[in-house]
C-alpha cells in the first residue's frame, strides 16, 4: 500500500484496526514470562487464528506481533541478535493470516529505554535499533507501519525517522496520553500532531492508557490542526488488578457506543487496545456502517513546537518575540563557556528571556575555535531539558542546522534560508525532511537588494522552490531585512514595505531583527521601539530582539491590544495589572539614623557590604572600638538571636547577620587589642566523626561559633576519636563539638567520649546532627546536644560558663 492509496482509502472509509493481541495469545496458551515474539514465531498457528478472528470481526488491518520486536526489548530475552529474522517471520505470519482480506501494519513500539538528553540512550542508537526492526518487517512484507504506545516524543521521532529512512511506505504515529491529556514526558495532543505531521507521519493518533471517553478528548484536540488522518485505539475502560491479572471494566457494547462520537470527532483509523477482543472490533464494524470520515480541513496556521508546547504565529496572534541573547557575538563570558562546554550562561539567558516574554529562543553558537555542529547539538539538547519554549536554530551552515534539527524534539524554526543558490539547494531538503518552519531571507548571491520590490521577487523565487519540497506559505516567515538607517535613511521604509507586502499581498508572516535599524545612533532603544511599533502597524508577526528591554516589550504588548491580537487585552492586563502602582517610597530615611544605629541595623539586616564603612565612620566620629562592639555589634547579634528564636528570622537571615557581624568584628578587632584586654576567647574543637563525610552542618555551627566570639578549630570530617582528643588536648580546647549525620556513624561519638574520659581530658563534649538527640547525648555521656547552629552557640556559652 503506497501513501496515495493509504490516503485515498482513508478519505472514503473508516479503517478498522485490530484489538489486543497479547491477551488473546494468553487465552490460547501463551505462557506468562516468555518472549511473545519468539513464542509466536514458534507457534504461528495461534497468531494466525487470533488475527483471522479479528479480520472476521471486521478489522481491515492487523498489527504484526512485533510490539517487543525491537533490539532493546528482544535483548532482554537474549534475542538481540535475531531482530531481523524474528520481525521478518512475524510479518510473514500476519500476511498469511490476513491473505487478501486486509492489511498488515508493521508494529513498532518503545525500546524500554529513554532517549538522551532525558534518558541515557543516544538518539542515533534509537534510530538504528528501529531501523533494524523496520528492515525485518519490510522483508516480511508489511503494508505500512504503525509506531504505537509511545510515551516519549523523542523516541517516536527516532522511530519515524527510521521508517522514513528505510522506505516510502505510509507510517502512523500513535502516542499514549494519560487522563491529564499529556504523555508521560509532557507532550500535549496538539504539539504531537503538529510535530509528527511536519516530520512526515501519514496518520497521527493515540492508543492505550485511557478508555474511549478520555481518548475522544485527545482526538478532538488534534482534529483542528490535523493535516493527516487521525488514529485511535482506546482501552476497554480502566484497568483493575484482579487475582494478579489486569482486567478492564468496559464491556463491548459500551465500547461500541463511542464509535459514532469518534467519527464525529474526526477519527479515520479506529481499533482497540488493552482489554479489547474481536467482540469489541465487531462493535466498531457494526457501528461505523453508513458513516463517512470527516473531511480533513485543518486551520491554516503557522506554529512551532518544543516537546511540551506549541507557539502559534500569525496575523491573528500576538507578535511572537524570538529572544536573541543566546549568541556569543560580543559576549566574552558566553564564548568562554561555549569553548569549555559549560551551560550556566545559556541557562541564565534562556530563563531570563522567557521570564521577560520571549515566546521562542534563537540559538546561535557560531564563533571561532569551536566545533559549531557539536556545540549546537549540545546546546539544543541542554535547552530542550531546561525550558519549554520552542527553539529557532540560527546558523549559516546547513550541516549545523541538520545536526540540530535531527535531535530537536519538536518543530523548530530555521534562521534562515535565502536565495543563495548553494545554500538554498542544501537547506530546503533538510528543512523539508525535518518538517521545520523557516525564515526566508530575501537576499541572493548578489547581496541584499535595496528596494523592496526587488526583495519581493527573491521571496517569490524562494517560495516557488520551497513549494516543490511541500512547503506552504504558513510554513514560512519572511525576514523584512532591516538595514541601518544611519547609513541609509530610506532603509527602514523599504523594510516596512516588505512587511506590508507580506501581510497584504503575499500572505505570509514576517519577522525583523530589530537592533540593526539603530546601529550607529545614540539612545538606540527609542529607534528600535519606534520601528517595532511601525512594523507591527504594517503587519509584522514576529520580532527577533532582546526581551529584557522593558520599553520594547511594553510597546509590543500595547500594540497587540491595539491590533486586536491580544484578545480582550488579557495578556496586557495580566502583565500590567499585576504591577504595583508607583506609590512614593515610605522607607525610613537612613540618613536620619545615628551611626551606631546604622551599624546595629547593618548587623540585624546582614549588610556585609556596608558594615566596615559604617564602623569606619563611627570610629572617625570619635567612638571607641569597644563602644562599637559592646553597644552596636553585640546587642545587634543578640537581637538577631532573639528574632531567630521567635522564628521571625530563618537560617539564611541568621547566618547573613552572623557574616555581617564577623565582617564588622574582624575590622574592629585589631583596635580592640590596642585598647583593652578583653576576656580570652573560649576554644572549641569541631569535627565530623570517623566514617562520616557530611560537614555542611558542622561548618555552619563553626561559622556561628566564630561569629559569637569562640576560637574555633575545625578538624574537618571523617576524624577518628584519637585524633579529636589529641587535638583538643594540644590546643587546650574547653569544648569539643561533634557532628554525625548517619546512624552508622553516630556511634563514633560514644568512642570520642570514651577516649576523652580514659585520657582524663576535662573538655566538655557537645553533639549535633540529624540522627542524634539529647537522650543520645545523655546515653553516651556527652555534656549536651544542640539541634541547630544557634542553639549550638547557646549551648557552647553555657558549657563555657558564659551564659
Amino acid at each position, binding site marked *: 500500500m503506497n501513501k496515495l492509496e493509504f490516503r485515498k482509502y482513508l478519505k472514503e472509509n473508516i479503517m478498522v484496526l485490530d484489538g489486543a493481541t497479547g491477551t488473546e495469545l494468553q487465552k490460547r496458551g501463551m505462557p506468562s514470562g516468555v518472549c511473545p515474539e519468539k513464542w509466536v514465531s514458534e507457534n504461528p498457528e495461534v497468531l494466525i487464528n487470533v488475527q483471522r478472528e479479528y479480520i472476521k470481526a471486521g478489522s481491515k488491518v492487523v498489527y504484526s506481533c512485533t510490539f517487543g520486536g525491537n533490539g532493546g526489548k528482544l535483548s532482554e530475552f537474549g534475542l538481540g541478535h535475531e531482530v531481523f529474522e524474528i520481525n521478518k517471520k512475524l510479518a510473514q505470519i500476519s500476511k498469511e493470516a490476513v491473505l487478501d482480506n486486509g492489511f498488515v501494519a508493521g508494529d513498532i513500539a518503545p525500546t524500554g529505554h529513554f532517549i538522551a538528553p532525558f*534518558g*541515557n540512550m543516544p538518539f542515533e542508537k534509537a534510530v538504528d535499533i528501529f531501523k533494524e526492526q523496520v528492515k525485518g518487517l519490510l522483508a516480511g512484507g508489511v503494508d505500512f507501519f504503525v509506531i504505537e504506545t509511545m510515551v516519549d516524543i523523542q523516541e517516536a521521532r527516532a522511530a519515524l525517522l527510521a521508517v522514513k529512512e528505510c522506505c516510502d511506505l505510509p507510517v502512523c504515529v500513535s502516542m499514549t496520553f494519560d487522563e491529564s491529556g499529556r504523555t508521560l514526558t509532557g507532550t500535549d495532543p496538539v504539539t504531537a500532531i503538529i510535530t509528527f505531521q511536519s516530520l512526515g507521519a501519514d496518520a497521527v493518533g493515540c492508543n492505550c492508557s485511557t478508555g474511549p471517553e478520555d481518548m475522544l478528548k485527545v482526538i478532538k484536540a488534534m482534529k483542528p490542526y490535523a493535516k493527516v488522518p487521525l488514529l485511535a485505539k482506546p482501552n476497554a475502560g480502566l484497568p483493575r488488578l*484482579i487475582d494478579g491479572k*489486569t482486567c478492564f471494566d468496559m464491556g463491548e457494547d459500551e465500547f461500541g457506543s463511542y464509535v459514532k462520537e469518534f467519527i464525529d470527532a474526526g477519527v479515520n483509523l479506529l481499533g482497540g487496545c488493552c482489554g479489547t477482543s474481536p467482540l469489541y472490533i465487531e462493535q466498531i464494524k457494526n457501528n461505523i456502517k453508513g458513516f463517512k470520515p470527516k473531511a480533513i480541513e485543518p486551520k491554516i496556521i503557522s506554529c512551532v513546537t518544543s516537546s511540551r508546547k506549541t507557539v502559534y504565529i500569525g496575523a491573528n496572534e500576538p507578535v511572537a518575540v524570538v529572544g536573541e541573547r543566546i549568541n556569543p557575538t560580543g559576549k566574552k563570558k558566553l564564548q568562554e563557556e561555549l569553548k569549555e562546554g559549560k551551560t550556566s550562561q545559556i541557562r541564565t539567558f534562556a530563563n531570563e528571556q522567557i521570564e521577560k516574554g520571549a515566546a521562542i529562543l534563537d540559538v546561535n553558537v557560531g564563533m571561532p575555535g569551536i566545533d559549531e555542529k557539536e556545540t549546537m547539538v549540545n546546546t539544543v539538547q541542554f535547552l530542550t531539558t531546561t525550558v519549554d519554549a520552542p527553539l529557532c536554530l540560527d546558523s549559516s551552515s546547513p550541516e549545523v542546522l541538520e545536526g540540530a534539527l535531527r535531535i530537536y524534539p519538536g518543530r523548530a524554526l530555521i534562521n534562515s534560508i535565502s536565495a543563495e543558490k548553494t545554500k538554498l539547494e542544501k537547506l530546503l531538503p533538510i528543512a523539508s525532511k525535518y518538517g521545520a518552519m523557516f525564515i526566508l531571507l530575501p537576499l541572493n548571491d548578489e547581496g541584499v537588494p535595496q528596494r523592496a520590490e526587488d526583495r519581493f521577487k527573491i521571496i517569490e523565487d524562494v517560495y516557488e522552490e520551497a513549494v516543490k519540497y511541500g512547503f506552504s506559505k504558513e510554513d514560512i516567515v519572511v525576514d523584512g531585512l532591516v538595514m541601518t538607517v544611519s547609513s541609509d535613511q530610506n532603509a527602514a521604509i523599504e523594510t516596512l514595505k516588505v512587511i506590508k507586502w507580506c501581510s497584504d499581498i503575499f500572505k505570509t508572516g514576517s519577522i525583523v531583527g530589530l537592533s540593526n535599524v539603530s546601529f550607529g545612533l545614540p539612545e538606540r532603544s527609542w529607534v528600535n521601539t519606534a520601528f517595532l511599533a511601525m512594523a507591527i502597524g504594517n503587519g509584522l508577526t514576529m520580532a527577533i530582539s532582546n526581551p529584557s528591554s522593558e520599553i520594547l516589550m511594553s510597546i509590543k504588548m500595547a500594540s497587540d491590544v491595539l491590533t486586536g491580537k491580544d484578545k480582550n487585552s488579557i495578556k496586557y492586563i495580566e502583565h500590567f495589572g499585576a504591577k504595583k502602582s508607583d506609590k512614593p517610597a515610605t522607607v525610613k530615611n537612613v540618613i536620619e539614623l545615628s551611626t551606631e544605629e546604622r551599624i546595629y541595623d547593618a548587623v540585624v539586616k546582614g549588610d556585609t557590604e556596608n558594615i566596615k564603612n559604617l564602623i569606619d565612620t563611627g570610629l572617625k566620629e570619635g567612638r571607641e572600638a569597644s563602644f562599637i562592639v559592646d553597644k552596636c555589634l553585640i546587642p545587634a547579634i543578640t537581637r538577631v538571636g532573639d528574632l531567630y528564636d521567635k522564628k521571625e*528570622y*530563618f*537560617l539564611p537571615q541568621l547566618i547573613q547577620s552572623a557574616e555581617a557581624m564577623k565582617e564588622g568584628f574582624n575590622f574592629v578587632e585589631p583596635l580592640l587589642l590596642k585598647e583593652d584586654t578583653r576576656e580570652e576567647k573560649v576554644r572549641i574543637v569541631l569535627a565530623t566523626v570517623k566514617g562520616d563525610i557530611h*560537614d555542611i552542618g558542622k561548618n555552619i555551627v563553626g561559622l556561628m561559633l566564630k561569629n559569637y566570639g569562640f576560637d574555633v578549630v575545625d578538624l574537618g570530617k571523617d576524624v577518628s576519636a584519637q585524633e579529636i582528643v589529641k587535638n583538643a588536648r594540644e590546643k587546650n580546647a574547653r569544648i569539643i563539638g561533634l557532628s554525625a549525620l548517619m546512624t552508622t556513624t553516630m556511634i563514633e561519638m560514644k568512642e570520642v567520649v570514651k577516649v576523652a574520659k580514659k585520657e582524663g581530658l576535662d573538655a566538655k563534649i557537645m553533639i549535633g546532627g540529624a540522627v542524634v538527640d539529647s537522650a543520645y547525648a545523655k546515653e553516651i555521656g556527652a555534656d549536651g546536644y544542640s539541634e541547630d547552629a544557634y542553639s549550638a552557640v547557646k549551648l557552647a556559652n553555657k558549657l563555657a560558663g558564659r551564659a
Partner: protein
Amino acid sequence: MCVSTLKFFENIPVVPDKNMVLTRLGYKKTKTVFDDTYRVKLDEQIKQGIGLCNTKAVFGRYKIEEWQNDAISFSKDKVFKSESVAKLLKNSLEVVLMASTVGKNITEIISDEIKNGNASFGVVLDSVASQTADGALDWMVDFINKLLRREGKKLTSKRYSPGYGDFPLLNQKEIYNILNLNKLDIEITDRYMLVPEKSVIAIAGIEGIE
C-alpha cells in the same frame, strides 16, 4: 527476578517546591519576615541553586518472591530484613528500587560558599539541593504511577529509605549495586554513605488498583 531493565533518567525536569526549600531552612509562614529586597535576593539564590543541580535518577522493578512479617526476598538471593519494610510491602507484588542525585557540582559549590564567607547563600543552595533530590524521587514516583496505571497497578503511597527505623543503612550498598549507581556518578563509602551527599535511595511497593 527483574521485571524490566533499569530505567535511567539523565535530566529530570524537577523544580523543587519553593515552600519546602524555605521550610527546610526554618521558614515559618506566619512568623518569619523579610522585606522585598531580601525576597528578590532569595528568589535569585533559589534559581541559581536549581540551575546548579544536574538531576539524574534510576529505578528498577523486582518481583517479590517471599514475604514474611520481618523480611522480604526478591531477585533470587536478595533479602531486606525489616519489619517496617515488610509492613510497607504487605500487599505488594513487586518492589521498586529507586535513586536520585543532583550531582557533585552543587555540593562542591555549597562547600566553597560556606568556606568563603558566603554561608547564607550556601545554606540556601544546600536546601535547594536536598529538596531537588527528594523532588526527583517524587517526580519518579509520579512517572512510575502513570506507567503502572495501564497495568491496573500503583505504587504504595509511602516509600522507605535505608537508615530509617529498623531498615539498616547497610542496605544502601545492596541497592547501590542493584541499581548500578556508579552509572549516575554516585559512589558509596565503606560506611554506606552516598557521594555526592545529595543523593537519595528509596524503595516502594507495587500494588493492584482495587
